[in-house]
């Protein structure tokens, strides 16, 4: 009977090709994963058990870097415009309003603000900027900033006030920021932190275990 004899085939496959694909994918993902864009101001935030995700729109954020320098950042362009105009009118700073709107953050005294917003983006790095002067309690410029922001948000929903501080920032600069808030009746703010689990056996842990909702 003429039945064709099948040739004996090995079932072990050459895995070089698959390896290649695996590594190709690996390199693809490594190269394309977008990390958070390099921040102009390097801040390492502390950890906390807070579970609420930080708001990422409609915010006014105060950044404290590790040397205690204070920067201000906000996202609403129309409010930025208002602030630039107010500063120009009241303090005669001669700020370029468009450049002010484009700037991601502000970190200069009022006197040098016009020059600050005209700096090219890549030169505006936290490390070599002066920050908003806050240390002098009599002349805490953040108070003025917050006052104008308060005016800008008059009649609309108050912005999410955020404080993003570095682990190593000293307390006096944080206090200066808090004072500036208080003076303008901003009595509620949020601090940006990295999430952390509640330690075992503590009251909060027990609450979480029993499914109780905690106050935020």
């Amino acid at each position, binding site marked *: 009977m003429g*039945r064709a004899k*099948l040739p*004996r085939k090995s*079932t*072990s496959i050459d*895995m070089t090709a*698959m*390896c290649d694909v*695996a*590594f190709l*994918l*690996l390199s693809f*993902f490594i190269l394309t*994963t977008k*990390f958070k864009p390099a921040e102009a101001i390097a801040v390492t935030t*502390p*950890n*906390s*058990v*807070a*579970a*609420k*995700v*930080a*708001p990422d729109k409609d915010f006014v954020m105060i950044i*404290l870097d590790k040397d205690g320098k204070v920067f201000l950042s906000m996202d609403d362009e129309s409010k930025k415009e208002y602030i630039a105009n107010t500063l120009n009118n009241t303090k005669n700073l001669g700020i370029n309003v468009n450049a002010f709107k484009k700037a991601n953050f502000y970190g200069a005294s009022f006197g040098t603000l016009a020059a600050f917003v005209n700096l090219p983006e890549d030169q505006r790095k936290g490390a070599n900027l002066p920050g908003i002067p806050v240390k002098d309690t009599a002349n805490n410029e953040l108070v003025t900033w917050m006052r104008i922001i308060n005016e800008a948000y008059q009649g609309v929903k108050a912005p999410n006030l*955020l404080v993003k*501080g*570095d*682990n*190593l*920032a*000293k*307390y*006096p*600069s*944080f*206090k200066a920021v*808090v004072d500036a808030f*208080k003076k303008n*009746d*901003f*009595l*509620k*703010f*949020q*601090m*940006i*932190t*990295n*999430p*952390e689990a*509640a*330690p075992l056996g*503590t*009251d*909060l*842990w027990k*609450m979480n275990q029993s499914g109780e909702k*905690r106050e935020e």
Partner: protein
Amino acid sequence: MAEMDTSGGGGHKKGPGVKKGKKLSTRVDLTPMVDLGFLLITFFIFTTTMAQPTAMKLFLPKDAENPEDQNKAKESGVITILLGKDNNVFYYEGQLDNTASNFKSSNFKEIRSVLINKKANTPEKDLVVVLKPSSECTYRNVVDILDEMAINVLKRYALVDISEVEEKLVKLSGASAPAAN
């Protein structure tokens, strides 16, 4: 490893004309799968490290104009925590006495048990924690101690300015106490 029996049913003879199935190994080379596994692991490690930042809320009290308007707290229920240099923590219960004998040194690890003790031994409505960060402590210390309030579910606490006497005391004790982490 799991393997299929391919020996052909105990070795009994098949009838004439029945071809015996070819012995094929069912063993699969797992190396590519391992590769893929590592690939996925790597991918997930890279993508999940970026945890969403969370926000911790803090409500500020309005500055009372007159001392009479300020909140009163029972002395027995008050514990004051002072934050010093190099992550040192100091605390005292009630009022600081003249010789500062009730001024105790602690650190971030031990302060939790202090707070838990205090909470257990004080009626809830009297318990107030006063937090006084000195000018030498860091932002991290402040967040940590506020976090400690959240961890121990202490509802009444206040961030208060440190007095000069306390500032000095913290400085002195901070110099003598070993730097804690």
